[in-house]
């Protein structure tokens, strides 16, 4: 039962983490699955691959990935496609990390554009680089993928975690009562 309380606590951790990131563009919500083994209840976390809603921003350097795949920025993978040009003309995210193309950071000249297949072209149509993406994935420019957290279901998860915790506590108290009886009442000599 103590493991059930721990599990409920992990579920709350995940639900609040998801809720906190309901406005983080490109955020993928964490999901939990519970299973029971010899050591009690265990929580497994995984990241949802569900596509987030697409929000139109009309800024030419906002890129939304439709399908699988991620942007590589500074050695990390992200789905947040809010890029700006930095002072050296490279595409960079809000943390200043540069977006990687096939070989190194992508330099983005004036008037260049990103095509739906991820290729970056100059205004004259000359190919510069390509954002590496798996086949079948498209890029939409002027839009951002919003967080795929569903605030309603996460609020329910918060409630559910709280109630499971409460239930587990009640059961734990009941077990404690039983043991109390066994230890103090059963063997008592009248």
């Amino acid at each position, binding site marked *: 039962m103590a493991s059930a*309380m721990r599990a*409920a*606590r992990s579920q*709350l*951790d*995940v*639900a*609040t*983490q998801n*809720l*906190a*990131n*309901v*406005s*983080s*563009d*490109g*955020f993928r919500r*964490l999901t939990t699955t519970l299973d029971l083994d010899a050591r009690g209840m265990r929580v497994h*976390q995984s990241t949802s691959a569900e596509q987030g809603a697409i929000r139109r*921003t*009309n*800024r030419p350097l906002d890129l939304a990935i439709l399908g699988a795949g991620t942007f590589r920025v500074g050695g990390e993978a992200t789905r*947040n496609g*809010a890029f*700006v*040009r*930095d*002072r*050296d*003309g490279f595409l*960079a995210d*809000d*943390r*200043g990390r540069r977006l990687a193309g096939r070989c190194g950071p992508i330099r983005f000249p004036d*008037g260049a554009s990103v095509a739906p297949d991820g290729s970056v072209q100059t205004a004259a149509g000359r190919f510069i680089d390509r954002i590496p993406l798996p086949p079948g994935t498209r890029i939409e420019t002027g839009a951002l993928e919003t967080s795929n957290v569903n*605030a309603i279901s*996460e*609020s329910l998860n*918060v*409630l559910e*975690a*709280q109630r499971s*915790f*409460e239930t587990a*506590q009640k059961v*734990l*108290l009941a077990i404690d009562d039983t043991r109390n009886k066994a230890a103090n009442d059963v063997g008592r000599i009248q």
Partner: protein
Amino acid sequence: MNRAMYAAASGMAAQQQNLEIIADNLANADVAGFKSAAASFADVNAGGTFGLGTESLGKHALFVQGKLEKSGGPFDLAIDGAGFFCVEKDGQFAYTRAGSFSRSPDGSVRNADGWRLRGVRIPADALRVDVGGDGRVFVDRPGATHVAAGRIDLASFLAPEHLRALSGTLFTASPQSGAPQIFHPGDGAKTTLAFGMLEKSNVSIVESMMAIMTAQRAYEANAKGVQAADEMLRIANNLHRS
């Protein structure tokens, strides 16, 4: 438990900041040349440890073109395309897209806050002023028409999003934005000037109202998360009965 509480609290702080920025956008929806700002948020990742909540990546201005509107001002200018007016006050340089200027007695062209538009000087006896799409300024004086009176240059930046905001409409260069690149409007550049027009703010009232509602509900949901974490602590404390 504390992790859940801190994650939820970081979500509340983020939504609070979000609301402040949206409110500021709405308050300036009627200010010519105002650029709406947005905050972006991301989950906190500390060496693979998950569940540390969210953090703000900072506020930046969105340089999306606002609608051009005919205005009645004596020296109103609007930029159609990318770029900024170069203005100067007390030796300090700044950049703006707010083009509501007027003539000063000393011949300079200034906005309401006293910032002087660089590159142009209007003679005191000028009867009529005209600015072409390429920024060339012509005046009609007694006895002479179409006299050149300078050319308005614009500045562009490689990373305008990193400009430092002095106000909602006035910006200065920062190390991250790069140095200003001065260019002539027209002349093959995609940017042109429109005289007698003003650029309206690029704030969308409908979108801002929607954003306010979303932020408010998200704030509430995070507050519930804090409450739930607190409630769990209470329940855990009740395990010890006296």
